[in-house]
């Protein structure tokens, strides 16, 4: 079992969702986040004052998958989120120790699928 965390451009969310659904990945948690990467932020102007904002709005997806779905999921995210420009985001893959479905008490791979 793996936990895949992807940070993507907000405007790519619809495309990424569609690509994941196409790849039969239907379960995910999505949140609005702000972060800092190579894109380096922007400056804001208000009444002549300039202020730099280096945390930019991003969308974070958390997807728990069984091992045979890992590559498929990563490929779907890259295909939909890639524009080739700085700011496209990152994907982190990490081992997942346990997963429990609260409703049924199922654990492990059964609980993810």
């Amino acid at each position, binding site marked *: 079992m793996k936990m895949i965390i992807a940070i993507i*451009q907000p*405007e790519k*969310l*619809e*495309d990424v969702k*569609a690509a994941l659904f196409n790849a039969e990945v239907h379960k995910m948690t999505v949140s609005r986040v*702000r972060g800092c990467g190579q894109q380096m932020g*922007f*400056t*804001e*102007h*208000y009444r002549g004052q300039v202020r730099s*904002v280096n*945390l930019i709005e991003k969308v974070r997806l958390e997807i728990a998958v069984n091992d045979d779905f890992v590559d498929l999921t990563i490929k779907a995210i890259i295909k939909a989120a890639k524009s080739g420009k700085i700011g496209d985001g990152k994907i982190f893959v990490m081992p997942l120790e346990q997963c429990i479905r609260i409703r049924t008490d199922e654990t492990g791979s059964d609980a993810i699928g």
Partner: protein
Amino acid sequence: MWFKNRRGLFLLTVLSAVLLAGTAQAAEGAPSELAQSSNTLFILIGAVMILAMHGGFAFLEVGSVRRKNQVNALNKIICEWGFSTIVYFLIGYPIARGVSFLVPVDVLTVDHGFAYVKFFLLLGFAACVPAIISGGVAERSKFWTNSLAGGIFVGLVYPLIEGSLWGQFSNTLAGATGWLATTFGAPFHDYAGSVVVHAVGGWLALPAIMLLGARLKRYETNSIKVSSIPFLALGSWTLIVGWFGFNVMSAGSVEAISGLVAINSLMAMVGGTMAAMFISKNDAGFVHNGALAGLVAVCAGSDIYHPVSAAVVGAMAGAIFVFLFETETVKWKIDDVLGVWPLHGACGAWGGIAAGIFGQKALGGVGGVSFFSQLIVTVAVILFCLAASTIVYGLMKITVGIRLNPHEELIGSDLAVHRIEAHPEDAL
């Protein structure tokens, strides 16, 4: 008592003398000081109510666009008011009305400066044109090219229409002794601007929206949402309230005021709201725009309808708005963000034609209107506007471009043009 000192008594005497002088003058039949000053105040109140409507345009757009384009909506409306004032003052008003303001002030300050407030009121009408277009081209148009187009429309295109139908050229074509009146029995009738203001704005907007093209991803995904129903509703309410100045103060003077205009505006607004509510199954966007659809349609005949007819005209406008908005944006894939063509273009044209139907004596109206005069002028205005907008936006599109680049559109016009988000505190 307050006049127990001498100065108070003196003031009281002067006041009574002035009041008596006023009544004496009125009795002789000449326009009294009180009549002149009342007219100036009357028109000023109308002008300020229309000024408030522009705040309504701003908030209707703020609520109807995504969060990343809210600042742009606000800045566009207030800047376009500024551009409109300058070009209408210098060029547009002299074309439409044959009155120039570049004369010594004492020429126009007689009769309490009525000429100045009349300009203010009519500027409010003229400035509706770019404010209407703004809602259609939102979220993707370039600020400067869109402002330039607005300036050309307010300085030249709108004044030619205003001048022909309301202003200094109106007698030759649409006036009481014009060709329409002698051929069809009645002149063209547009009391408060269903055709002259709203149809003009809506039909000028349509080619602009089509030449711009849809917002990125508008038809590829369903990810484009509106940012705020409360702001959308605030904009709608501000427009509704101001509209009673727009319609009632179209009387032009306090002696000509008509309570019928007020009740008809109210009935049409309610008719539009009810129709939109039933047809759309109580959709927030449609209900709040349905009220406006009714008001757009009632302008032309608001002084001649029976209130029941006004409700019918408004209800039909509400229905027209809902059906045409869906047809335009879903079926034809024309990305009209606020639906300004169905709202102002289609309902404005409907209002112009409806005045020729429901204004007739046979349908409980005051009469003195001709269906064919209404139809011919409405169609002519539509064709003129389509041509003017195609030329202006078309020429700008092939020369300097009218659209933000994809990157600017993705980060939003707030950051791309104005360098700030609508809610700066959200930035970390």
